[in-house]
């Protein structure tokens, strides 16, 4: 039997599992998650899938996992009791935070409470200045007294974050040694061991989040590893990081702050690989599920990475100008815009007679009216059903039965109170959901100065294909790709990702005041560390890995940095000159101006090493599934003009290389694609459904402008 890789992605409602053979054979399974012990659903789903695919556990050579365990542990407050040690005078940095509110005018909003209560935040006399000079030596006797208090409290997790430690970690390092000796049972972490970057609140928060999550994630990783072992699956086990790279599970356990956005990242990474296969580096990724839709951008084949994110801020949905809902984490994270628009979003009428869709969602319980699980308020899925877009009998290959009559009644009630025809209201719900998703797609394109028309749209998630054509028309996008197993695509994306290790060291210095030797002195140990980690994961040869050296840079006085690739190591004067001009170029690209006269500030140096994924070039061969009935047609509604049109309903396998014109409905096991009139759909050799407007989209644009 050929070797197989196993991808497992846990979501709030479903656990998605994918098996990918070395020859491209692809098998997928959706199963309800088991939040009390996620590994239960994993075991059940994996066993079923192995049986179905006739694959034995020994044939699995790699496991990649995406999980929301870290985020959930913070939202549910299931982390460790942490003690925090700070510089004297700065005990409250963690609780003072940044005074940002994500919800103006809402006097009931409260930030989540700090992860370390005040009595467990200890101060010790010590002080380093901004240039790394010691202003006041570390008071070791005071530190010993603090250690004794921590021991008396029985605390197992200790975080140390001293002011300006990014500029000189000597006191933090000394403190860690003393604490480890005094508290042999505890895990002790210093802010500069992790990702030593400037800004004390964000660095403290990152260190504390990491310490808080460690026992939970370590326990989770160990339990899951054990369960897989018991099933006979002994392959190396990696977890997706927020940055889109995989990391060995044990390292993720020790550095859980790295995997906070693990879940959403995998789908985007999968789309990036898809783009490589398609020969298209500019993609808008839209992932529409039951509760939310997420948009992200791939530009010139690269992911868009933000230097930090926030975790645990459930309140933040919508305006990306506002921050402060959660705990900041200084970890590179794929930029993803999320809006409350999914299949479960509820349609309602406000006090002024206005028509709204979302942000409330019927979720999995009670679910849309048509699920017939006691839901009474019409949702986007109910509207899509009325419009003829969804199979009126069942979804998920027949596993989820639908009650179309109930959906019809619920929408008719809403329509009566609006004085409109039910079908117009259903179409309105569909369009308003699109308008909300458009905001997310614009947030990652036009709001970044990018023209969406230059991108292809990749629609994933169970509902992505239902809405894709309408969204593309609104944005002027002329090409859509719906990959195979679109509804399980995050799980597949896990199998297409590289392993990634990152080492960072702060170097906060104006570029003009730096000599190359200083940079080399910082980079040498970082490079050695990354090479060691890659070798440990089996990526030894130069062909198997790619190492990148980045400098976080900004103009003096700015807040945010840009990561600029350093050409050539060891660094010379010429390299530093090149860095300065490359920063100007990047700044111009990101912000549309450059100021060559202004001094450039170096903030940190980073080494990113990637162990390249083996399966990146595999042509996928999804297993075919039988559909309900051949030669089926059903009527679907496409707005006032052209109204109802009869649509052929086909399986993905029935599409060929020749484009078939819309209107057309393509039904898959895990998703549905609605091909609107004016679009053509064909299937490429890799099983992707490729949709194009007319020949190349020009027809549509011409129509629009007349």
């Amino acid at each position: 039997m050929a070797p197989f890789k196993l991808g497992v992605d846990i979501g709030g409602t479903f656990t998605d599992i994918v098996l990918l053979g070395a020859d491209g054979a692809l098998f997928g399974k959706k199963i309800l998650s088991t939040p009390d012990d996620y590994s239960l659903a994993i075991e059940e789903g994996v066993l079923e899938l192995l049986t179905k695919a006739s694959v034995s556990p020994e044939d699995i050579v790699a496991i990649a996992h995406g999980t929301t365990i870290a985020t959930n542990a913070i939202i549910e407050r299931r982390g460790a009791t942490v003690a925090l040690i700070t510089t004297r005078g700065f005990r409250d940095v963690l609780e003072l935070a940044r005074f940002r509110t994500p919800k103006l005018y809402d006097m009931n909003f409260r930030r989540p409470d700090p992860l370390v209560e005040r009595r467990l935040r200890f101060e010790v006399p010590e002080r380093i200045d901004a240039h790394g000079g010691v202003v006041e030596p570390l008071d070791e006797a005071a530190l010993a007294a603090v250690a004794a208090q921590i021991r008396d409290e029985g605390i197992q997790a200790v975080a140390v974050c001293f002011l300006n430690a990014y500029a000189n970690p000597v006191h933090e390092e000394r403190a860690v040694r003393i604490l480890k000796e005094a508290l042999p049972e505890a895990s002790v972490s210093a802010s500069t061991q992790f990702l030593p970057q400037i800004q004390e609140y964000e660095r403290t928060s990152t260190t504390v989040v990491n310490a808080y999550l460690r026992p939970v994630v370590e326990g989770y990783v160990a339990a899951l590893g054990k369960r897989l072992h018991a099933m006979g699956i002994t392959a190396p086990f990696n977890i997706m990081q927020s940055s889109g790279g995989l990391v060995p599970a044990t390292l993720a356990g020790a550095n859980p702050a790295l995997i906070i956005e693990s879940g959403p990242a995998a789908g985007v990474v999968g789309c990036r690989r898809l783009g490589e296969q398609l020969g298209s580096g500019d993609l808008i990724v839209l992932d529409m599920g039951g509760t939310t839709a997420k948009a992200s951008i791939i530009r010139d084949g690269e992911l868009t990475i933000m230097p930090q994110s926030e975790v645990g801020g459930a309140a933040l949905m919508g305006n990306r100008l506002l921050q402060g809902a959660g705990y900041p984490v200084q970890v590179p994270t794929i930029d993803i815009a999320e809006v409350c628009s999914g299949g479960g979003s509820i349609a309602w009428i406000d006090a002024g007679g206005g028509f709204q869709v979302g942000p409330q969602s019927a979720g999995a319980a009670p679910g849309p009216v048509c699920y017939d699980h006691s839901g009474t308020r019409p949702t986007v899925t109910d509207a899509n059903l009325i419009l003829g877009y969804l199979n009126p009998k069942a979804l998920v290959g027949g596993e989820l039965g639908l009650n179309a009559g109930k959906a019809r009644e619920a929408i008719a009630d809403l329509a009566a109170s609006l004085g409109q025809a039910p079908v117009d209201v259903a179409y309105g719900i569909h369009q308003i959901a699109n308008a909300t998703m458009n905001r997310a797609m614009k947030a990652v394109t036009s709001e970044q100065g990018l023209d969406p028309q230059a991108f292809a749209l990749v629609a994933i998630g169970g509902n992505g294909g239902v809405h894709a054509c309408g969204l593309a028309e609104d944005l002027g996008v002329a090409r859509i790709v719906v990959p195979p197993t679109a509804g399980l695509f995050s799980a597949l994306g896990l199998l297409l990702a590289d392993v990634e290790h990152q080492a960072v060291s702060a170097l906060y210095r104006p570029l003009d005041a730096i000599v190359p030797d200083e940079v080399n002195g910082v980079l040498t140990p970082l490079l050695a560390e990354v090479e060691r980690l890659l070798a440990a994961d089996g990526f030894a040869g130069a062909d198997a890995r790619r190492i990148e050296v980045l400098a976080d840079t900004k103009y003096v006085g700015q807040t945010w940095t840009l990561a600029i690739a350093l050409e050539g190591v060891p660094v010379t004067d010429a390299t530093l000159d090149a860095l300065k001009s490359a920063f100007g170029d990047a700044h111009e690209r990101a912000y549309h101006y450059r100021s060559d006269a202004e001094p450039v500030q170096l903030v940190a140096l980073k080494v990113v090493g990637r162990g390249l994924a083996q399966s990146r070039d595999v042509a996928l061969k999804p297993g075919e599934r039988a559909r309900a009935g051949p030669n089926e047609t059903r009527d679907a509604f496409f707005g006032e003009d052209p109204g109802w049109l009869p649509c052929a309903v086909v399986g993905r396998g029935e599409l060929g290389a020749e484009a078939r014109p819309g209107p057309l409905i393509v039904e898959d096991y895990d998703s549905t694609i609605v091909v609107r009139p004016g679009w053509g759909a064909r299937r490429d050799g890799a099983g992707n459904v490729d949709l194009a407007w007319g020949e190349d989209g020009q027809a549509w644009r011409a129509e629009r402008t007349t």
Partner: protein
Amino acid sequence: MERSPIKRELLRNALEGIADNMMVTVIRTSRSMVVKSNLDFSAGICDGAGVMVAQGLALPPHLGAMMPALAGCLDEFGDDIHPGDILANNDPYSGASHLNDVFMYLPVFTPGGERIAFVGLILHHTDMGGRVPGGNATDSSEIFQEGLRIAPTKIHERGEPNRTLFRIIESNVRVPGLVIGDMRAQIAALQVAEREFQALFERYDANEVKAYMADLVDHSERLTRASVAALPDGEVEFSDWMDGDGVGDDPVEFHAKLTVRGDEMTVDFTGTSPQTTGALNPNFWFTASCTYAAVRTVLDADIPNNAGFTRPITVIAPEGCFLNPVFPAPLGARGQSGYRVRSVVLGALAKLLPGRMPACPGGSEFAVVFAGYEADRSPFLFLEFHNITGLGGAPDRDGQDAGPYWLGNIANVSVELIEAESPLLIEEYGFLPDTGGAGRFRGALGIVRQYRLLAEKATLQLRSDRQFFPPWGLEGGGSGSPGRCLLNPASNDPEVLPSKFIRTLKRGDVLRGEMPGSGGYGDPFTRDAEAVHDDVRQGKFSVRHAREAYGVAVDARTLKLEARATAALRAKGRNAGPRDTRSQMAKRTR
């Protein structure tokens, strides 16, 4: 024409999307910290007659600002407005706000040539010239000292930049690179918005757009009326004070009479102190904006921001009073008074809606500037705001320590960034125990920030308040502690500083700013003893404060709660007078 609520919602989304995109374009292309970090700007869309239809994320002081400055422009130019024109206005006496806020508007014409809309942007510019850098001085006595006044004019005319105006601005501001750069960002964002607006005509008929814009305003008005009607009818009055006007020491009274009748509300500031010499006077429109913001907190949160929201709310401030000064009163530092307008309206709402509103948020609207020269004679300028320190106690829970204010959104600045970029060492930044207003639900703690000057010398400018009139409590809750500023607190002879001043510091001088706590809610002797005990354990209360303010006994050594002693203390009742000394102070100082 038949209207569909679905189409209206789609058009609203499109218009708000255009406004949001303007905001993002500004963030992406502007240069200054004020814009990038403090988000001190707003975007809006008005119809062809100047009625606001949609607003992007709106900072509270911009809530009612978009229309009056455009009205000032329309008064000046009438129909003499053409495609490609951009109108500019920063004149507080022509509808703008203060000189640093430059308002710009670009008209949108339909394919048929009808003026159907204006896209507009308010942006705070770093410097407009005048006597003091940044224009935030409290002690100006005429607007002429505050910088360049641009009465309604065209900064672009039929697509061409007005070079004369640009030259005048360039030669009158201290940091022309920054100011002109930000103005270019402002102009570029307007032009992008105009193109996006034009794209709507590909999808909608121009008359349809016009009709739905009017509809959107009516819809907001209906939502607002429904929301006001849900409030009880009544008439309430409330006063709050500022320590002084920045020139003299006389306290300034803010008085609000708030009336709800059916679906309409009136906020009348008659009875407020007369306008003063200093630069803290807000003009009427700033007063109105801050009033709308405070009122918004008790109305439906989802009401779209447009002219419909303000229609049912009438704001009255007699000409010549502190909140509606007459020409040529200066207004540069009116931001501070905006906080007091918000607090006095919130206080009135608390009387109208007992059991619904929290006590006053803490803070002294603390704004500090250190400016001078480094050893190599290169200039430095450090400016930061600590307007609010935390939240007031609420009817059902404590005010969150360091809780973010819902009527302001200015972040604190990282200590490490300050030290890396300015010759300052921050010696302490933390909570001040015992400073939250006592209450059944207590107010948030006050905050201390202590600065040591490392440069040879520097000019220090402080604008703060609440040294005499601390943040008020409600329903028997105490006020937060007052603010206090000290020079060289560790020396033998620390100097107590006033709330507003300019002076020179030398190397090694230390400024200690103790900022007030928030007001408490309800009788502190009814506060859950366990909650008091926890505050002691957390080091947020001293043992003494627990005993005196709350009647709760905690053993000073073991930090254990002493239940019997607590019961005895609480049975005996308080021997001190009422904790809220605000009204006494008002009597004393008036």
